[in-house]
């Protein structure tokens, strides 16, 4: 079956079996390996991508369900020239060690901060409780997300 959608601003068309998950499609057909697969049953959050702006678990979506959607992966939230404010904050706070959960954390945090740049620590923890990390113990991740709020607030102010 064909599925046509936009990934990181580029239109793509893929030919897939219905059973292929969006995660596997992104990783193996589109070679966007930044989105990771940690459990394939919707618990760990390593596969989080943005679907029409909302953070979703790409292992719990079929590639065919993405037809007509706009998807953004961690690659689409990055650029070659420099780290983004959110990424800089993660680095400054040592909010990653092995890096495996990191794309999911970045994507989820970006979605949260875009919607709620005034979120508090409790809200950040609640939202990130759907993303498992085994290395950091989460404290530095929460610190990093809170520290990145300023950048999202000024962005929101600019956009009126």
């Amino acid at each position, binding site marked *: 079956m064909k599925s046509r959608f936009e990934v990181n601003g580029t239109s793509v068309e893929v030919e897939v*079996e219905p*059973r*292929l998950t969006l995660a596997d499609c992104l*990783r*193996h057909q589109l*070679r*966007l*390996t*930044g*989105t*990771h*697969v*940690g*459990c*394939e*049953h919707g*618990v*760990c959050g*390593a596969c989080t991508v943005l679907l029409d702006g909302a953070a979703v678990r790409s292992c719990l979506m079929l590639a065919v369900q993405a037809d007509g959607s706009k998807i953004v*992966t*961690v*690659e689409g939230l*990055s650029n070659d020239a420099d*780290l983004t404010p959110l*990424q800089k904050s*993660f*680095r*400054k706070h*040592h909010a*990653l*060690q*092995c*890096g*495996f*959960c*990191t*794309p999911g954390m*970045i994507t989820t945090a970006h979605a949260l901060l875009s919607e709620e740049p005034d979120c508090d*620590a409790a809200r*950040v*923890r*609640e939202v*990130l*409780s*759907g*993303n*498992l*990390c*085994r*290395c*950091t*113990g*989460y*404290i*530095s*991740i*929460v610190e990093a997300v809170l520290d990145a709020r300023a950048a999202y607030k000024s962005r929101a102010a600019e956009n009126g």
Partner: protein
Amino acid sequence: MRTVNSLIGSPIERLEDLRFLRGRGEYVDDLSHNGCLHAAILRSSVAHGRIRSIDVSAARSLTGVHCVITAKDIGNRVPRVPMRLQPLPEFEAFAQPVIAENKVRYVGEAIAMVLAQTPAIAEDALGLIAVDIEPLPVVIGRHASTGNATLLFDETGSNVAMKFRAARGDAAAAFKNAPYTRRENLRTQRHMALPMEPRGLLAQWDAAREKLTVFGAAKVLFFNRRTIAKQMGLPESAVELVENDVGGGFGARGEFYPEDFLIPFAARYTGRPVKWIEDRREHLMTVNHAREAQCDIEIACTREGAILGLRGHAYVDVGAYMRTNGAVAARNIAQFMSGPYRIENIDIDVSLFLSNKTPVGTYRGPGRFETDFFRERLFDMVARDLGIDRVEFRRRNLVPREAMPYQLATITPFESKDELDSGDYRVTLDRCLAEIDWQEKSKLAGKAVNGRYHGFAVGCFIEGGAAGPKETARIVLEPEGDFSVYVGSSAIGQGLETAFAQIAADALELPMSSIRGVFHGSTSYVSDGYGAYHSRSIVMGGSAILAAVDNLRAAIRIEAAKRLGCKDNEVTIAEGARAMGRNGRSISLRGLSTSGISAEGAFLNKKHTYTYGAHAAHVAVDPKLGHVELIDYVVVEDCGRIINPLTVRGQAIGSVVQGLGGAVMEHLQYDEQGQLLTGSLADYLIPTASDFPNIRAIVLEQHPSPINPLGAKGAGEGGIIAAGGVMANAVANALSSFGAEPRELPLTPQRIWELAQG
């Protein structure tokens, strides 16, 4: 080493982050290879049985299936998973064949391997393989196992693989007339490391050159290479293991597993590259389990609370086979029961018994998490019996600084001796108490506020590190004037690339930017390597780098001397990457050699370092729900020398949270038929961001280790070690008015509720 702008000790931001944050890490599943076949493994759903037949014909005929491999396709004798640590002859009979031959001994054991065009087709084919297994009685639990009514290995005559013993002084005499003794039965539960990345391998066989390359290796590549080479009848030089980015290890990933033979074998058998990526359900039933131990332990003290002796029997459930490091935790339980405390008379034996469960291996702080729970629980009970303050009891019995180096109990077999190297254990205890404001806050101990009971506990730990025997590094001055660092150490997320760059740049007296990169793990990088385990990387790898830098500087001086027309001992290497000779002549390191100058270095070590410290917890327990809220948690540790304060703090906190998971929620549960009941992440629970939001880690460097040039001690496991004991004691303290005495982990809501029922 220069003191100005020293990189060691600086919170340098990590180099690795630049790719990880952008999703540009390269983990094994990110690798692709044209023409590659995908492997799926059929695993036993029966815990104990004899294989009568395996019918793969339907699986073979499925479109897209290339072939199906079972034991008979492998050869006369199916290779065994070797033991890497404590390879005692007694263990050989319990070795695991890399694929089941005539018996299966645990749910998850490999029975057959399908190679297919896609992972999905390979998995479809698994459902078409018909296996006929004659069930045998399932051995679950210590009594069933040690009773020997059903043997896992008929030839051995016993399900008890080994007994270690730790002895010091004369425990019998110490107990004989002891004014006070207490005996307890305590247990820790089976749980596991659970890194976020599942395992995977990609193997390529070059038939023309008879060369094997395996991607996805980790931790102990050089040992694994030696093993694969031997098992496949190849010279070591024909086998290359490559370490990609690794999504966490914690002791479990990287050890030699059955798939580490099966996948390379399949590549040679089919003549095609073969990729295998484990799924999470498989991971839970095949990656080394850990921590299932119980002990019957007795302590003798004076009435003033000085410990006279410790004796007892511990039992470790090692699962169905003895694998690469399956004996380590048990051995550690024997040796480290005393922890950081001065206990002159010890007699502890630890039995390793087999059962029809997944085999065990090391998980961060192996055996130490267990002993810490046993010992620290006992201490709180004893302190109360004797009417002595719990903190005082500990302070009184810690090994004092003057007594270092302090000999631990001797372990047999192996006659292994070890000693605590350096430190002032009371300092970290006192600092920890101050940080949590123990004096003030603990006035709430046992009291209820809004229906929740507050509890406090403190515990002390030691963390062994720097396992030898050796590590190797190589440094290259590139033609462009920058430096590449190669190490035999393995990266598993601990920030080695950055820490080693700091150490190398510091030793070279050059900025970090002069280090082109740190290349780790892969067998082609250095002549010999050992890997990442027992918190050894900074000490062993870092010290090897220092040795390599020394050798490189000597080589640079020789080369520069030729060009500067002076003697090599007249050359100095200065900041600004220049070599200076006599009379102000100098030459840039850039272009010093058109092919680069390379030097290797090694560090040999037979002694362990001991990072040490204390943890304290403040909890509030809701007795009607059994819920524990962690209000505050402090860990203070002294790791000798801090290379990067950012990463060492990160390790401490991450390690604590794993320990807390083990204390209250993680549990691999089996039923009486050996079925793993916790088969997904919905049932095997690990901490999330909401569970333990209040943890503080303070790392000190007051007592460098005398045994290596960095003065560093291995760190990274201390956080996990004390968490079980401290949480259990805090809950006991909170529920003291209910007479609650937790003797078993995990402290789930149900267990805490039961304790509060009185």
